[in-house]
């Protein structure tokens, strides 16, 4: 039951000129599962996200979502099918308030503004940011923006949520707060893929993890086992430390 695959990425490759940012990667996400995606900077994690969410088109390979191939679809179509995402570098609508940012996301499934507002208010309430609802996107702090982006993605009512380094740039206190929020989201039963450098997040949330290195998949296992994988230690901590 839990083994039903909601996303299947099959032999996916993305070239930027001579550079293979993602090189023949095959991964899958089970329904209701939280998947960790780790790897050093430049490993191709965000490129993979960009292809799954339709921002970039792959050079070759296929992405199947709920049984439908989506690698040629546009970003807004993929969102409509049920994949929501956040950005590593936050992308707010700066002239809109926090509530309006989230409301804009809710409008896809609730075309009436009043309905969308209700949905948006419920979500920002869950994420604990309702006191900021009338603050313009341009005036929000980084952690507030990160929460807003998660709320905006959730407002599109996705089946799969792609979270791209939501912890980056936050201080330890804020990380603890956001980790609690993410746990809450996980408990709703939604399928999640997380890109993260903070291992604690992966260890706490992920059921399974993939490791990418220079565009290639080098490991797949439970988070604990993945951490012990020699290739992971090599690419993450460095060869010298591994040797000693």
């Amino acid at each position, binding site marked *: 039951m839990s083994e039903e695959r909601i996303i299947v990425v099959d032999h996916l490759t993305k070239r930027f000129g001579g550079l293979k940012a993602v090189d023949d990667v095959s991964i899958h996400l089970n329904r209701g599962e939280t998947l960790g995606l780790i790897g050093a900077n430049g490993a191709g994690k965000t490129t993979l996200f960009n292809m799954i*969410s*339709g*921002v970039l088109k792959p050079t070759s390979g296929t992405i199947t979502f709920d049984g439908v191939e989506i690698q040629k679809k*546009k*970003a*807004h179509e993929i*969102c*409509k099918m049920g994949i*929501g*995402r956040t*950005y590593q570098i936050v*992308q*707010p*609508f*700066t*002239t*809109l308030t926090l509530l*309006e940012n989230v*409301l*804009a*996301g809710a*409008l*896809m499934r609730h*075309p*009436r*503004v009043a309905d*969308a507002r209700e949905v948006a208010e419920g979500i920002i309430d869950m994420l604990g940011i309702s006191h900021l609802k009338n603050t313009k*996107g341009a005036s929000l702090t980084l952690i507030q923006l990160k929460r807003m982006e998660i709320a*905006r*993605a959730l*407002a*599109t009512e996705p089946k799969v949520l792609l979270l791209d380094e939501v912890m980056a740039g936050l201080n330890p206190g804020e990380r603890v707060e956001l980790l609690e929020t993410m746990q809450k989201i996980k408990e709703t039963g939604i399928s999640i893929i997380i890109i993260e450098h903070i291992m604690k997040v992966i260890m706490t949330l992920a059921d399974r993890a993939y490791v990418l290195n220079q565009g290639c998949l080098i490991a797949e296992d439970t988070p604990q086992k993945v951490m012990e994988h020699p290739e992971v230690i090599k690419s993450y901590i460095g060869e010298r430390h591994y040797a000693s």
Partner: protein
Amino acid sequence: MSKTLLKDKIAPKHILVLALLVLAFLFPQIVTQPYFIQIAITVLIYCYWSSAWNIIGGYAGQFALGNGVYIGIGAYVAVLFHQEGFGSPWIGMVLGGVISVMFAFIISKPCFKLRGTYFSLATVAFLHIVRYIILGFNSIFGMETNGGMGIMIPYTGRWQDMQFGKEGFYYVILVMLVLILVVSNVIRTSKMGYYLSAIKTNQGAASTIGINVPKYKMMAQCISAFCLALGGAVYVHFLLNVSPYDVFGYDLSLEIMIYCVIGGSGTLWGPVFGALVLGIINETLRVQLGSDIAPLASAFYGVALILIVRFAPGGLYQLGQMLINKIKGSLGKKKSETKEVSVQ
């Protein structure tokens, strides 16, 4: 209880709008000199055009610099439709709107793939192409257009021919302005309005929350083109003359854009505010100082535009709002201060 509810619904803002509307409707009754009504009509049509441009330039944030082309298309189609004996210019006006939308669709389809400046330049290029076609030929598809001379519209004074004297034109254009403000307000407060704001600030993020970016930009452009065209058709019947220099002029496109930006693009009242203030200054200068001053007016716009873009990107309208809030804030402070004093 019911009183407070009513109070909540009727804000001072609404009273102000109502007062403005009443004033606008009474204007020709109070000020009867034709000269002032003439200026008022010109200012009103600029208010209307700026509001129409605001839909693509303001709400959607796409700087369609050459969008005056749709004013010209609307004007020429309405006049030629009547001249060639197909029927009333009223039908011609609607046809002009439809043809403008078709052109807007064909032109914008490839142009929306371009971003920012390139999109603006592409719309300007289209304006020039149409202008030179009209300038270069004396007849188009067998219909007399007289090139640069333009077409004189024979005076009949019949409303069927879209002619109804100065006062009549004043009211027709005023009603059109009210209608476009209603349309703008519906767009602004609906799904489309939120989507356009999202597209304006971040196209990438907009597409990943399910917004079909090209579709919504196209809708804004087509609505804008349609409204511009209707205004063009009516205005040339007021002038009783249509010439490519007037309706396909680069100046006209620029003026509409400048009024909108200086007034406050992306707001409901900004374009009206900008066109009112600048239109009145412009018309007064022209009449008082003669046509020699026209280049000076452009220089004035240039300076004003730079100042606005640098110091008040929200335009005069937002500047006014900020001032009001400041005054309110300081008044509130004083009130609370006096309260404290009285408590002591």
